[in-house]
């Protein structure tokens, strides 16, 4: 276990690992070595990093098809993730999942889903199991703003509130569903207020303030462990890249570059990096680059599954 001198340093390490991993994915992508659609969360990493920092190994996280960050922040194996993207046998799902369905049960990473919103009730089910078994674990479920439009979101919040389940709902509100802006999808930009009517604490973060999110999530998770029922967080954020793929797409006309500049000026990766000592930062960065190099080597050298394996795992 690596120890860091400050919370800021620990959070920087988590954010930087996700940022650099996704930058490398974007670099490699045109080579076609990655056999999977990739949904990059560059610019949004600080939310997963800040919240998951409070979790222990037996706690669960649920991410989405944009889930590299959730997987890595919870301790998912970088080698296994990269091999999975390459479609290799050494992948976290032996090449059956690709980027969209990352999983690492031993680290509490619930399998991710590409059908928007479907992971939410599944995460609530994990919280139900925790309560039924009298465990002191918690679940954090991450989702985008689009997922909150699915019926199962409201159904899930209601059920979790009704049964006082130990689950933290975290919306990464990048205000885009593929290319569709929020104002074409929501009658009222009042998600946090809507959720509060289920009788659970609900909090909105407009700014990418990693430490404020970290503090609130820490308190919330502590209360979850005491059995006081679910908590909801909405974090406004900005997706730097296209919905799917390795490119930036501000030239496509559906959103403005000026909006991006505002968010990039507050980039948590840079802000936190600047807040820690240059020496510690250099050490963190060097370790990440070494880990990434090793992960790419692992992915390259891992074999593809043999075709005889096609029928493995249909049934347990």
């Amino acid at each position: 276990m690596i120890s860091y001198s400050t919370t800021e340093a620990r959070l920087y390490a988590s954010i930087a690992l996700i940022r650099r991993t996704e930058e490398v994915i974007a670099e490699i992508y045109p080579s076609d070595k990655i056999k999977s659609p990739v949904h990059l969360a560059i610019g949004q990493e600080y939310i997963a990093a800040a919240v998951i920092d409070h979790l222990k190994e037996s706690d669960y996280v649920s991410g989405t098809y944009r889930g590299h960050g959730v997987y890595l922040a919870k301790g998912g194996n970088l080698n296994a993730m990269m091999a999975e993207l390459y479609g290799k046998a050494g992948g976290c799902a032996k090449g059956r999942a690709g980027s969209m369905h990352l999983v690492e049960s031993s680290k509490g990473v619930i399998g991710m889903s590409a059908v928007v919103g479907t992971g939410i009730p599944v995460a609530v089910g994990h919280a139900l199991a925790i309560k039924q078994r009298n465990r002191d674990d918690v679940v954090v479920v991450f989702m985008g703003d689009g997922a909150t439009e699915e019926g199962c979101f409201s159904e899930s919040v209601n059920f979790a509130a009704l049964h006082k389940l130990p689950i933290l709902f975290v919306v990464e509100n990048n205000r885009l569903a593929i290319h569709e802006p929020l104002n074409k999808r929501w009658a009222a930009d009042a998600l946090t207020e809507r959720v509060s009517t289920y009788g659970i604490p609900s909090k909105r973060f407009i700014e990418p303030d990693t430490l404020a999110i970290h503090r609130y999530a820490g308190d919330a998770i502590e209360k979850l462990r005491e059995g006081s029922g679910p908590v909801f967080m909405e974090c406004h954020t900005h997706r730097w890249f296209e919905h799917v793929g390795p490119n930036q797409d501000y030239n496509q006309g559906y959103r403005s570059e000026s909006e991006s500049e505002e968010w990039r000026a507050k980039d948590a990766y840079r802000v936190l990096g600047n807040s820690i000592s240059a020496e510690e930062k250099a050490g963190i960065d060097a370790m990440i680059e070494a880990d990434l190099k090793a992960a790419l080597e692992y992915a390259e050298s891992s074999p593809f599954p043999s075709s005889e394996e096609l029928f493995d795992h249909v049934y347990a």
Partner: protein
Amino acid sequence: MYTPDTSRLLKYFEGLCEGAEQAMESDDRVFMMGLDIDDHRAIQGSTKGLLQKFGSERVFTTPLSEDAMTGVAIGAAMAGQRPIHVHIRMDFLMLCMNQLVNIAAKSHYMYGGSVQVPLVVRTMIGKSWGQGAQHSQGLHSMFAHVPGIKVVAPSNAYDAKGLTIQAVRDNNPVLIMEHRLLYATEAYVPAHPFTVEFGEARILREGEDVTIVGVSNMVMESMRAAELLAELGIDCEVIDPITISPLDFAAIEASVNRTGRLLVVDNGWLNCGFSAEVLARVAESDQITRKVNMKRIGFAATTCPTTPSLEDAFYPNPRTIAMLVYHMVTGKQDWEPSLESCQLAYQAQFKGPF
């Protein structure tokens, strides 16, 4: 041939209930959830007494949120619990389709064998007294289409109990398709816990002239048709597949190779359904060396109507089954059984409303 323990008669709904009760007794990870399972009607008695015995932590109702509740059951199953999710009508499974097809069926495969979903979904088909378009559908073929999910269809109280226990023990999602009209039917059922294995059909009646494969309550209808045909000297073999997926095709194949005739009587529509699957496998079989005369009968290719005059024409019944078999065997259409002889006690018992 199956030889029953004749010590105790149990009704179908009692078999379902006893199966769940014994599964819950033997494993504290098993719990049951579903709208109305804990009310005074107890899903027509099939969950009766479970709340009192196991408490509201393990037996509880749900909000009317079939989509999310299915996801919750799946999530609990992934986390090590063994949920039984109950629906009073199969039609509501359309609201669960996303979770069942996209998550439950796929998780073990999609996550490289690292995640299991030991989920049981109990669901009931309705029939007659105006159940109509949305309380009558047999949707087993839709689910059996998807790899990763198992579909079973008990036709009697013995299988209702044994399949329930087996479904709970299975590490995959299992859908139990029950039939409302079978709820009051009785069979000999052992008191001790036992399982009915998946993928093992049962030959309910041996015969040489024709193979009839019936699904769910159509097993009863087919057995009555076989009795009527026996009076004419036509010898029917009646097979209850018991489980739709996995399917014991070998049993059907061997029978058809002997009789040379096959009628599939489905409790659902024909188009792209179970009956089409069985006929296709017979057509493809390398084991069947003779030419086979194949027919199928099931729901009319319409929405289910409520009025009895139309509803009677919508379903197969002993009369239509027997007449079709008679034609297959003799090539003639000069016989009709009397309406009285085609009455089935279980059909006559049900007076609605639900």
